[in-house]
């Protein structure tokens, strides 16, 4: 419990900053919706002028963009990008922070198992993500009901929004496995930004080519908002892969971390 609280405290600032930027993003975007929907026809004309690959890469779907859900799912791509960086940062710092700040000796000579350390750190990181998501969801829902021009399915709105959490989970797991495998991470940001943007660009690329196989590579394309809009459900195969990936990455991290030599600095 002590470790859990200590970790939470350590992540408090960054969680607040990320949550704030996520809600700022959603507030800004959604507040543009009333103007946008008024001029929807004109906007659609402009968008049609864009070459199709660019529209796809940016996640613009002309059919649905004039509805609030369509508009929301367009901006949501950038929300997940933001959220992915937050989760990847958290995941990568979990273990590497102790090594980098040279506090591993302190923690690991206490009467606790490494498994417990890992579990509590993981729980703390998850708590941060859950808090971020709850606050985000609350703000996004309120904002959406403010700016809506017609009734919309809250179920679908919720289904889209919660994929933020699912994508974050994958990046968290990815960050953790990277941080236990790499011997020493001098700085978290280059690694997390690099990884997240690589996947984001792969995602844009996958969208332009429409290649379904490529969607399996990048977490950003696991939850296709257009699919959710049409079917009000997720794609089963992606959910299975996500769960499989997370379980494998976390299990491997536990095993590697408990067998790892912690060297003097």
């Amino acid at each position, binding site marked *: 419990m*002590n470790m859990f609280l*200590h970790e939470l405290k*350590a992540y408090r600032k960054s969680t607040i900053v990320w949550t704030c930027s996520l809600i700022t993003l959603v507030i800004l975007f959604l507040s543009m919706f009333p103007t946008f929907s008024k001029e929807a026809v004109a906007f659609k004309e402009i968008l049609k002028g864009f070459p199709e690959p660019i529209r796809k890469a940016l996640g613009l779907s002309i059919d649905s963009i004039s509805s609030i859900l369509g508009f929301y799912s367009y901006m949501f791509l950038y929300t997940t990008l933001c959220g992915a960086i937050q989760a990847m940062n958290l995941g990568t710092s979990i273990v590497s922070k102790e090594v980098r*700040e*040279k*506090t*591993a*000796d*302190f923690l*690991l*000579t*206490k*009467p*606790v*198992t490494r498994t*417990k350390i890992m579990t509590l750190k993981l729980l703390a990181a998850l708590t941060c993500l859950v808090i971020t998501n709850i606050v985000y969801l609350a703000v996004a829902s309120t904002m959406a009901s403010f700016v809506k021009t017609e009734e919309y399915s809250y179920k679908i709105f919720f289904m889209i929004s919660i994929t933020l959490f699912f994508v974050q989970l994958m990046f968290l797991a990815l960050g953790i496995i990277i941080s236990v495998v790499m011997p020493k991470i001098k700085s978290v940001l280059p690694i997390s930004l690099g990884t997240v943007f690589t996947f984001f660009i792969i995602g844009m690329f996958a969208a332009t080519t429409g290649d379904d196989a490529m969607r399996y590579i990048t977490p950003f394309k696991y939850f296709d908002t257009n699919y959710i809009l049409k079917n009000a459900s997720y794609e089963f195969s992606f959910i299975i892969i996500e769960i499989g990936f997370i379980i494998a990455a976390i299990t491997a991290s536990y095993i590697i971390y408990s*067998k790892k*030599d*912690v*060297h*003097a*600095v």
Partner: protein
Amino acid sequence: MNVIEIKNLTKNYGKARGITDVSFNVEQGEIFGFIGPNGAGKSTTIRTLLSLIYPTSGSATIFGKDCVKFGPEIRKEIGYLPSEVFYYDNMRVIDLLKYSASFYKKDCSKRIIELAEIMDLDLNKKIDDLSYGNKKKVGIVQGLLHAPKLIILDEPTSGLDPLMQQKFFDLLEQENKKGATILLSSHILSEVQRLCNRVAIIKEGKIIKVEKISTLQESNHKKFKIEVKAKIDDNYFKVSGVSALDINGNIISFLFRGNINFIMKKISEIQITNLWIEEPDLEEIFMHYYEKED
């Protein structure tokens, strides 16, 4: 009873460094010194005991339990002071110590205040703002606050001023009197000499000798310094048992090991003006071991 038993402990880091076949025991209630130059494998051995790193082969037990298997359980009763202390910078000293104490299921708040007073440590400062020596003090308090049965110190005195060193040594002796066993690694011989009952000497990853300090100092060597009236033959003292012979004009000095009567007879046969016989300090013996190996 042995608190620490190390059997054929080996740790390889690829090709370089590491320790080979290290074996020694530390008995209950003793202050055990672990000396050797930098990079000899002191920290490697200690880190293996704390299961920060895992041995390639061999084993070590603490309180009769295997270090790797029972790590967390063993560590309840260990206080550890690393050679370089680093803590969560943005915490206040008291918060860090309380966090440290929270891992042990006992109330340590009184002891924290006591120790901080002895070590003259300001509990309300931020760790970030502390000097190296003061951080070291935090480390000392942190290592002792739960009244551990085994205290492991890795080059503990670097960064402490002589006054603080003294206080720290007194503190260690008190803990030892209360029943704590202490393993002290150092490359500073005088502090080992001052505190320890027995020492293990390590060099290039191998234990060269485990010996009582008193044996090392007394029964093995005497340091002779003789002032002679007239210059004598350079080879006069080149006999078995004599080492580190140095002739400087009328002053002859050497270390002697063996039957003291023999060397006294030898001295009585020449004309001398002055004679000093001293216990050699550990440093001289230590250098002696090292030179012999080279």
